[in-house]
């Protein structure tokens, strides 16, 4: 990456529009596009933004509902528009149900309803919806257990340990909202005929994987090789792979995010790295 490059207005407009569409800010992105004279059907738009725009209203609706705590509405909406998504993506479905549970607990805190009934409701919900997801996956189980302990603190929030607090507050909700948003986008990109997603995948390992499948020998040999030479690395990798497969968020693989957020992450990473280096230089 060099410095000499001029950053022009178009580039920045593109980054901003990409962010707005990605995050589902429907009104803003439409107004902004109009201001800068970009047509969503026009040729100036990159494929990602174009495809993402097609689902912007849907994603926005889901996000608003979710952040407002109407989790059941979110599930309904998803089942209506993307029936396969929850069926195939256990991880996503689990997180939404968990959020649903948390919202139920929260709702009870604010009301003075009958406590016994409430606990029974919670247990019923957990039994009917969550248990079959959890049995197969120990990590899911842990999370469910943690969530259930929320019940202990249902009347005195202030004593809540930090980990629980995070679960209870905005962050978890935001994470789930983000997860749904990205899952829909991945799905939309896959459905788009333009072969966009291949491009996306290209960036992300898939291409190489194909070649590995074509040449099974290669895979074998790689593994052989690693086993011999880079034991430490291998161990680390094994640890990673050793985790429950379902638990690993499949979205990690795609590293899907808006250009702007990628840029912020790059900034954080690079700044810290430069700083680290300077320290190292001084020590020398």
């Amino acid at each position, binding site marked *: *990456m060099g410095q000499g490059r001029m950053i022009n207005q178009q580039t920045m407009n593109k980054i901003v529009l990409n962010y707005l569409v990605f995050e589902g800010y429907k009104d803003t992105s439409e107004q902004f596009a109009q201001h800068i004279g970009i047509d969503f059907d026009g040729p100036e738009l990159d494929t990602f933004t174009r495809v993402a725009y097609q689902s912007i209203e849907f994603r926005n609706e889901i996000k608003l509902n979710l952040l407002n705590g109407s989790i059941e509405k979110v599930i309904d909406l998803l089942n209506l528009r993307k029936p396969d998504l929850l069926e195939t993506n256990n991880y996503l479905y689990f997180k939404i149900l968990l959020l649903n549970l948390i919202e139920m607990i929260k709702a009870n805190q604010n009301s003075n309803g009958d406590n016994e009934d409430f606990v029974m409701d919670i247990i019923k919900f957990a039994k009917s919806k969550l248990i079959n997801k959890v049995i197969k996956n120990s990590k899911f189980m842990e999370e469910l257990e943690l969530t259930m302990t929320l019940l202990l603190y249902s009347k005195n929030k202030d004593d809540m340990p930090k980990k629980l607090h995070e679960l209870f507050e905005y962050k978890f909700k935001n994470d789930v909202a983000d997860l749904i948003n990205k899952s829909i986008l991945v799905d939309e990109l896959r459905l788009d005929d333009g072969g966009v997603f291949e491009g996306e995948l290209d960036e992300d390992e898939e291409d190489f994987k194909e070649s590995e499948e074509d040449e099974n020998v290669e895979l074998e040999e790689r593994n052989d*090789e*690693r086993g011999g030479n880079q034991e430490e690395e291998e161990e680390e990798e094994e640890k990673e792979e050793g985790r429950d497969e379902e638990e690993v968020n499949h979205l990690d693989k795609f590293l899907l995010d808006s*250009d702007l957020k990628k840029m912020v992450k790059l900034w954080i990473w690079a700044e810290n790295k430069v700083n680290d280096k300077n320290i190292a230089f001084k020590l020398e």
Partner: protein
Amino acid sequence: MSNLNDGLKRKSRSKSITKIQIPSYLLKTTFGEELEKKLNTSIPIDKDSKDLNNKLSIMGIMGKNPGKFINTSYIEDVQNIFNHQRRRSSRRISEGSLSRLRTINSSNQYNDNNDLMDIDDDHIDNDEEEDDEDDDNEDDFYDEDALLDSEDEDDNEDNNLEDGDDDDEDMDNENINVLYNEDEFDEFNDHDHPILKITENKYPLPTKWESSINGNKNLNISNNGLKLKVEPLQISKNLESYVTKSNHEISINTGLFYYEIEILSVTNNNKRGNCDISIGFIKSSISNINKFPGLEIGSYGFNGIDGSIHANNSINKNFNRKFGLGDIIGCGVNFASKSIFYTKNGVYLGVAFNDINKSLIPIVGLKNGNSIKTNFGQNEFIFNIDGYIDDEKLKIKKKILLNDNGDNDLEKINKIKDKDIPIISNKLISSYFNHLGFIEVGKTFQNEILKRQSQKQSEKQKLDSNEDNLKIRSNIRKYLMKDENFFKVIELVDKNFPKVFKENKEILFALKCQIFLLFIKKSQTIEALKFGQDLQREFNSIEFTNILNELFSLLAFDNPMESPQFIKIFARDKLEHINQLLNTAILKSLGLTSESNLQRLIKHNLKLLNILNKSNDNDSLLLTNQDFGI
């Protein structure tokens, strides 16, 4: 050696331009991205052709509606210009005229004059000749004579580095009136070179083997420097070792380099499946190479005889993969992971050496009766190197994108955590709208954010609408874009930001041109003429005259509003462009930064990465601007 020289001479007579395309995997590295920018610059048009352009422009042929000038003397004039120019420098003019012809051809949609087409054909012929020559050239991949040719071009090639960003729009605009762009004609020519025309001494990576290291005649090298052959043993019984290295070294900032050799023949007394060939790298600081790759300090090699890999004169380990006749062996260095790896017939064999942190140079060792063919990236590799680099890039991107500062990272200078990023992003976007003076968009955005903050969220982000100038800028925008009341715009700017037009005369000019167009739009011809005359008086320098001439030509139309030119000139994005120029100028005149926070963030990022790159930070080597949407 005498054969070799003959070969070179013969070649030098043939063609003068070498073409090379940067292998696609290299484009995925910082180095490759920069290199492409550096190399993908055309020969800028010289002063002669610029004059020509001006002439043509004044006559209307380069402009948007040559039809109005059509008469016999006009055609003759044009022919004279072309003929004169062609004699002067035949090669250049034919290159340049290709783009000019495009303009002419597309202009022809609006008139049926066949005389003009004649000129076109004439020139198209000329271009085709040129193309044929170029095709021939592709065989002579690395032509010695190119060295000579490059001397002429060196001076020019660096001038146009900054273009290229706008390729897409420029292509669209090709026949659109780019009213306010003085470099209009230069830009046309920039798109005529899809294939890089560069010479080998400008290409800073290995492209061929050096003729000979120890001057041994038995090692023959083909003209293109890619085939090596050692004559079979005749008198002596001991096989001798022959070693050579490539023409250029690979510096660490290259990030990744990969090449492949194919074994064409092996010594008779070797069994099938193996051979006395070893390939690898040697530290480029070592000039005196005597032994087979891996058999001396600072060199790394993979030997076909038993599949062993050697470094620094000791066996590192054994791949147990011999190679021999017909095999294709690949050898790559990855400075991001500081390792050297090998492939055999497209199959990844694994990392052979680690801790590679010095620049290297490819090296190969052969014994009697061996011959090989090399691919330094001129052809497609048999190994999926693009997949390999994607994989490596993914590892680094994961490091960056999935990294979250922990709670205890006190020594970190940038302590932003993942959960802060949405807020930061929204702030950046808000301030960007502010910067552009998009007050309504900013408000809409604010509302949408508030809608999502269901509960009493602490971080309510308020728009800094107390900025006085924001309101004025927003008004200016409204008058400019919505009401098309340009008089009011000029008045507002003059009143509130008096410095702006004094320092940016071209913006005032652009605005006044729009006023002129507005008169035409309303069919107020007399007012238009009057205003036009004032314009001519006010803006009499050469840079404005050409544009004015074009504008006035609109008067020649019976119904100018229906001419495609008019629509293009009056297009909304033109106004948007003016608005942006004006906005930037106002901010500047106020002593405010003319850069938005977003722009600063991008620049800052580029700077940081540049620092990392210069310090040969391994991770940043494989990142490109594209990876982050810049």
